[in-house]
């Protein structure tokens, strides 16, 4: 349109959509934030909507678990392990009991091992169901998926209450077995819940699986490659979503997991969608394990008779016991100096170590995606801060 000069003047210069001269905004998604699953703080530096820097801050729920455990007896530490990862208390008990059994060389009778597998897999079911509900809540589907998930979780909590007495803080395992045997009618109730679970999973999958919004928001978001995952010590469903074939139930074969046939799902892309799918598939595998364990649950004692409850003094030495918790590899490193109190009581927190790559996953993503990435890591602050 311009006639005067030879070079055409572009009356409408390219709009500065790509060159961002906007300043950076420092904001903290702080301790009290609906998306942080508890008191977890992230100092985020934003350029518009893109994340430039993300520094997590821990310690708001540091309850000095390890210092208190040094003044408690071995039995006294058991109820504290319920409060480590307060959504799945039985697997915490199991990891601690396993560590003390390797420390003191205690044998566990058959029936107790089967009861451990049954309650452990039930814990995994309710943890994954809860997590998928919370992940959808983070994504904006506030209410509906969480209501479905908690309806199933309540059924599993009723089973725990009938067996151990408490909904969330079961305090069920002792060194050398379990504390109390199955009350009458519990096995039938458990069988009913286990048979009802696949129906819930189908309902959940038809509600969410092919939902376009879910796929659009989670695919390709927060990608973790296989090497990154191994190097950053990521374990559990989050590692398997990136293709790391490392499930302690198959690697360590602790307890009696080698008697059950179950598959380990693996993801390829390692993004939020794979982690979500991983949990749903793992729920189905847990149901397989539960069916087999309930079928051949033997009779017999549930407690190794010659382990003392009070005044339990293991020989001086150390031991590191670990299990495949719902969140990842939960390990207990105990050092005993022969006295009734553990000399050093160290918890290997899967949630804290899975957060190592949080910044790498969130760089360049939108603010709303931080919430989903954090939700897919599945952290529980009691375990992160101990």
């Amino acid at each position: 349109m311009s006639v005067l000069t030879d070079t055409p003047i572009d009356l409408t210069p390219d709009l500065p959509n790509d060159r961002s001269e906007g300043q950076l905004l420092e904001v903290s998604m702080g301790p009290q934030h609906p998306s942080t699953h508890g008191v977890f703080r992230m100092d985020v530096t934003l350029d518009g909507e893109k994340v430039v820097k993300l520094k997590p801050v821990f310690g708001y729920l540091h309850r000095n678990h390890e210092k208190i455990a040094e003044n408690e007896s071995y039995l006294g530490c058991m109820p504290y392990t319920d409060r480590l990862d307060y959504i799945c208390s039985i697997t915490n008990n199991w990891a601690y009991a396993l560590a003390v059994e390797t420390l003191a060389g205690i044998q566990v009778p058959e029936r107790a091992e089967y009861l451990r597998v049954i309650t452990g897999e039930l814990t995994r079911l309710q943890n994954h169901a809860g997590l998928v509900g919370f992940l959808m809540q983070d994504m904006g589907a506030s209410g509906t998926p969480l209501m479905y998930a908690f309806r199933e979780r309540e059924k599993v909590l009723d089973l725990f209450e009938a067996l151990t007495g408490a909904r969330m803080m079961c305090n069920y395992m002792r060194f050398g077995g379990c504390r109390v045997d199955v009350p009458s009618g519990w096995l039938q109730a458990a069988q009913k819940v286990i048979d009802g679970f696949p129906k819930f999973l189908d309902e959940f999958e038809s509600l969410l699986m092919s939902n376009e919004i879910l796929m659009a928001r989670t695919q390709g978001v927060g990608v973790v490659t296989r090497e990154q995952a191994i190097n950053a010590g990521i374990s559990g469903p989050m590692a398997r979503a990136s293709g790391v074939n490392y499930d302690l139930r198959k690697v360590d074969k602790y307890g009696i997991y080698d008697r059950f046939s179950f598959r380990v799902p693996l993801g390829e892309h390692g993004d939020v969608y794979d982690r979500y799918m991983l949990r749903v598939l793992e729920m189905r595998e847990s149901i397989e394990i539960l069916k087999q364990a309930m079928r051949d649950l033997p009779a017999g004692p549930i407690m190794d008779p010659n382990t003392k409850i009070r005044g339990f003094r293991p020989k001086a030495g150390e031991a590191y016991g670990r299990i495949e918790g719902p969140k990842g590899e939960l390990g207990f490193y105990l050092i005993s100096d022969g006295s009734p109190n553990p000399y050093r009581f160290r918890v290997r927190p899967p949630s804290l170590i899975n957060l190592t790559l949080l910044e790498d996953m969130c760089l360049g993503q939108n603010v709303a995606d931080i919430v989903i990435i954090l939700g897919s890591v599945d952290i529980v602050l009691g375990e992160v801060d101990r």
Partner: protein
Amino acid sequence: MLGEGILKGLTETARNFLGSYVNKDRLTTVQFPEERLPQIEATRDFPFLVYDGSDWQAGLRCVSCQICEKECPPKCIYIEKSKDKKPDVTGKLQFYPTTFDIDISVCMSCQICVEVCPFDAIKMNVEFEMSSEDRFGGLLLRKEQLAKSNEYYNKIHPTEAAAVDAALAEERAKVEAKARQAAEAKAATPAPVAAPVAGETK
């Protein structure tokens, strides 16, 4: 086609919504104050002291051996031993606690005190409506608030209580059998001295 997944999700919620008119177990809400969940037998909330017979002062099983005070992880039990002794159910002279407080604002209902108590004197209650507006008076249960009868224990934990009663009964039977043998052994050897001092224990 686009949106087909969302429609499937909506039909799922619709089926759940219409289903709740048809089959009852889709309605999971329990209207708490009026309608309550059926009491689960093994529930444990806060400890209580068991006493036999009718008078809680005399029948209290606790002999204040203070094992639970030492073993309690958060240390929320406070016991003071009595100087004198009182006869317990089997007639044997035992100490009794003059004060037995449990601070339920610290207790984490882990029932380790129940596990380590050699006399089955402390059990877990099922009563959970203990919220109060006064922290120091309302949340410190003293001996009189803690003591509950054995019948109450049988009412809330029937199977467990039956097992405990059977064990105690058998133990008492053994104690009586031993006492009877000791009495016969004393009677069988008619000592030249005068008749034994009339029943100092019974």
